[in-house]
């Protein structure tokens, strides 16, 4: 195939990769080392590359009291409740819709698909104002259920769009065979298509979950009780205070990101496929 790599090419490649590696890592490290330092207020005022006295104290502190009176786990619970709830609603109510888009050629299908695509690519802010007013009317604005509805509005078009392509990749022969054996449409879906598409649906749900998990701006617009604050909101809230603690902020951010980072590294190829939208044409 291609020429054997020469040693100076090896050096050149490693040098380039190291540069990119530094570009990736240095900013992250700038924040991470703060978490292992005692209570730095604000950002440290001297340039350092290493914590002065490495300690895990801040993590313990954050665990017990992340923001105001809320322990870390309570915040995490809110986050999981809201984003998990919205992911579940999106998937549960979107699955059958996605199936219809994948299987049936009804009039208006193309239009519907395009609307879904636009919905999936809208910025979260696009629906903010009307949802604010609507949820105020429904007296749901400041509740976790209200926030769940807001996040569902963001993630559901995306989920439907994605699950459609999952169902599309189910071989049609399998379904037809089930049909010929006398299975009803519902039964075919339940027994054949859904089990095959489940892994892709799970990944779509995961992405929907992450949309809510890292969202905070809408959160602050809707929620006003400290008991209903999510993890991402707590971090952004801490930043807003002029005397924020850099260490505490970093520790929270690390705790929040670690599970996500692990998931991404494990599932990178699935996630890439799901995030690369396929075009409206089939």
């Amino acid at each position: 195939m291609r020429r054997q790599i020469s040693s100076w090419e090896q050096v050149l490649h490693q040098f380039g990769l190291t540069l990119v590696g530094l570009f990736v890592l240095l900013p992250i490290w700038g924040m991470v080392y703060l978490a292992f330092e005692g209570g730095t207020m604000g950002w440290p005022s001297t340039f350092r590359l290493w914590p002065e006295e490495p300690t895990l104290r801040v993590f313990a502190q954050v665990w017990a009291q992340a923001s105001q009176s809320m322990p870390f786990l309570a915040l995490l619970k809110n986050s999981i409740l809201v984003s998990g709830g919205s992911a579940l609603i999106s998937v549960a109510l979107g699955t059958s819709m996605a199936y219809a888009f994948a299987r049936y050629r009804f009039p208006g299908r193309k239009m519907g698909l395009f609307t879904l695509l636009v919905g999936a690519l809208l910025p979260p802010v696009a629906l903010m104002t009307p949802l604010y007013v609507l949820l105020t009317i429904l007296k749901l604005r400041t509740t976790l259920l209200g926030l769940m509805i807001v996040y569902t509005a963001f993630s559901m078009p995306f989920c439907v769009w994605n699950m459609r392509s999952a169902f599309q990749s189910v071989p049609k022969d399998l379904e037809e065979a089930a049909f010929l054996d006398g299975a009803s449409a519902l039964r075919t879906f339940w027994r054949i298509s859904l089990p095959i598409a489940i892994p892709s649906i799970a990944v779509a749900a995961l992405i929907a979950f992450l949309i809510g998990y890292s969202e905070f701006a809408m959160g602050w617009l809707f929620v006003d009780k400290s008991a209903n604050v999510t993890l991402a909101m707590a971090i952004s809230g801490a930043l807003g205070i002029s005397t924020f603690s850099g260490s505490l902020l970093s520790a929270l951010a690390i705790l929040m990101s670690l599970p996500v980072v692990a998931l991404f590294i494990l599932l990178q190829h699935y996630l890439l496929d799901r995030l690369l939208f396929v075009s409206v044409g089939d």
Partner: protein
Amino acid sequence: MKSFRVFVYVLCALFATLIALNLRLRAVEQLPIDYDEDDYLGAAQRYAQAIRAADWQEITEYDYNYEHPPLTKLIYGFAILGLPEAPLIPERPSTDAPASSLPEPHFDVARKVSAAFGTLEVLALALINPLAGLLLGIHTWQIKYTSQIMLEPLPALTSLLTVLFYHRARQSKKRDALWLGLSALMLGITAASKYTYAVVGVVVLVDWLWAQYQPHQARHARAESGRPVWGQIIAWGLFAILIFFAFNPRLWADPLERLSQSVLYHGGYAQSEHVSRAGFPIWQQLVWLAGPVPWHPGVFVVMLDLYVLIFAVAGFKSLWTRYRVFALWLLVAGLFLLLWPTKWPQYVLTLTAPLSLSAAVGLQAALKKIRIPPRKVISSVSWRELRRAWPWLLPGTIILALIAFYPMVYQGAMSLTDFNTMSIRDGINGGVWREVWLGITGQTEPLAVDLWQYFDRFRRPTSTDVHYVGFSSLRSLFAGGIPDLLVFNILWAVLSVVLQAALGVVVALMLNREGVRGRGFWRTLFILPWAIPEFVGALIWLRLLEPGRGWLAVIENMPFDVWLPDFWANPGTRLLLLLLAAAWYGFPFIMLAATAGLKLISGEVYEAAAIDGAGRWQQFRYVTWPLLWPLVMPAVLIRLIFAFNQFYLFYTMQVNFPTITHATLSYYAFSPTFGGQFAVSAAINIFTVVVLVVLILWFNRRSQAVEGVTYA
């Protein structure tokens, strides 16, 4: 038949010219006195005096406003020569507020001379393309600066003629010496009326050399002409310089000294406080072009400037093939305006002519494409299918209609009102629908209110009722009412994606090289920015970049001396820093997509290329890139749309750091600036959604084309 077509063509050109003349005369009447008009009219008065007295000394020595060559001012002087003398306008610093009144009818006559040059320019452009003439005729910046007593009208006209005559010379075989001579004459006059417009000289030179040294045409061209082109070029240039001196009486006494004095003035002026206080970003000229003149409501009848710009971008490719010299003009003048530190709006006139031509070509191409497609008979779509599909569709459709579709419609309704915090009680009790219904059925008059005034917090509304305002806020947005935000948003999306794509593809290529050690390790490391939630990524960059106390800033506090430039001082470098953060976020996604794509390219094509003797670069250029690009394009387009919507980065950076004056539309729709201005936010959102839909339509067409390539 042919003569009939010529007749129609000329008729169209004349029609465009008439419209242009009409619009300019209207502007001559209605535009208020602007900065500099008193300066130039005053100079004209003094020249007129000198001419009357046949005082050559005065004409060659008069040096007020010497930074600009005297030709245009002299012409204004000739124009008012026959009028009764009026008291001289006092000389004042050019930074002073515009004069409150100027002598009549001198003022009117001078403005009409300006309008005449402006109309002639439209005619000249309309003769090669009537539509382009029309677009130039209605361009509001063009109208403004060719209806006031400015220096622009003459050089704008002659610079167009320079290029036109040159273009003509290239096309004709026999008499090109005459056309080239005329082109040099016009170039000389251009430089003698305003220096910056002489940039067309560079354009002609570039085109000339391009034609000569283009690789696959060079041999042919040289064989054909058979004589050295350099002689022609030098003769052309010398003639232009000669004309420049001939039309510049002030230079006659002491050419070099006075020329350098006059030209060097601009260097100092560009650094002056007057210019830097304006605080315009480096891309400001694009902002001027992305919207109509904002200062004179009611004067301009049509405001399509934004669309001229859009179609000009779309038409650039066909402009390049059909009128290369105009395409070069757009490029060279664009680059010049980007680098030129003074960003006054009248400078856009250096390129409005090629811009209009490009827009016309683009518009014509777009119109050609819109043919009603033959109705395809798609047997698979049927109403019977709908009967089978509806039970599946129902639950999702109901929910989406409630939480996404209805809010969107409601948003549209809000954008027609003045709904805000003060009127929230009325609004949520149905006031929005009530007002929109009354307004659309014509039962109430739209409230005449400019919603943008609520940017000013002292002019916030006080009424507790919602009012119908009609389409005024949407109309102003779509006419280019917030050009600075729109231009920043587009620039941001394009530049950040270009950076991400370049880095992503380069890294993917490095990782794809067989035998490089630790490829798995590097790949996993590089995925990190993608895996980290966007918000935390923004925090990381805030910690690094925050002015005064971020990592970058405290480097200066180190014991040994480190000096860093103040990146936050101006919009350009600020954008650069933010772009760095955006590249960090976005490149892993493209890297992964490119890695997946590279796996699909078989080794055989490389072997074939190697047999053909392709080097490393040629392999990349002719093998890897054409095969890889279609595979990476979907990822690039996705990132483009995400960059267009980028929100959390700007939000986070803004928290401790309110000096970011530029951010995406998404951020502005949310921004606390609007503090409860629901209607303004809704209007911006509707605008953003429409821009996105256009982007997605385009994206969808491209990626379908891409699929065609992959499966071919």
